[in-house]
């Protein structure tokens, strides 16, 4: 993804460094609310339904303490990534059994083709780097989180 695309999908108002709920469904709603408040969701109920349907299929814990709930949904206005982090971790059913402490939500509109998979792929690639994960754990402002992500993805 180029810088322009990353800047379009994530901004500091989509990042919360407050401790999120410890339950998977509640943390997904917490991430969704960031997107709702940022004006990126037209239908919260639809978006939530699509995110949970995807979790039903297989949980989105990808290991190394990362959970990436994602959906292509008619409830989204534009491609969006929201972020929060949990100190205790949330069970996202990761293959390595580790609770997720870095939590991302990806939403893209129905017309987005495979855009959600491109965002998922770019984000996953960036998060394979130990230093990027460490920087996300220690970032002390939403702006710093978006800077770390922009530099890691582009």
């Amino acid at each position, binding site marked *: 993804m180029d810088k322009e695309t990353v800047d379009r999908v994530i901004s500091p108002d989509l990042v919360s460094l407050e401790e999120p709920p410890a339950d998977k469904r509640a943390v997904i709603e917490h991430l969704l609310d960031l997107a709702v408040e940022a004006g990126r969701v037209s239908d919260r109920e639809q978006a939530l339904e699509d995110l949970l349907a*995807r979790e039903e*299929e*297989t949980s989105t*814990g*990808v*290991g*190394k303490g*990362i959970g*990436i709930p994602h959906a292509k949904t008619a409830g989204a206005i534009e491609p969006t990534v929201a972020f929060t982090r949990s100190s205790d971790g949330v069970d996202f059913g*990761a*293959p390595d059994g580790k609770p997720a402490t870095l939590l991302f939500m990806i939403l893209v509109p129905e017309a987005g083709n*495979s855009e959600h*998979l*491109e965002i*998922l*792929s*770019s984000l*996953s*690639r960036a*998060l*394979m780097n130990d230093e990027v994960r460490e920087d996300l754990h220690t970032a002390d402002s939403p702006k710093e989180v978006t800077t770390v992500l922009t530099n890691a993805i582009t």
Partner: protein
Amino acid sequence: MMERTVTIVPEAGLHARPASKLVETANEFESELQIATDGAEPVDARSMLAVSSMAAEQGEDVRLIADGPDAEAALDALEEVLSTPEGEYDDE
């Protein structure tokens, strides 16, 4: 070290259920298992994060690389996951 090229059959590509099935299967073997799309660096087939980074789609060829005592059996098992249409997994 053994290699095999396999075409992705599941409609979802290497995403969602097929991806988690692949990672789950890869973890059942002792061998080092890597997977790569055409021209890309191979990644650890036992890591969901790594497999998610591939964005491999239906119809795409992927290279499987196995190194270890059960390499051939591992390649057979991974090939089966990649060649089985979603919905035909026998564990459901």
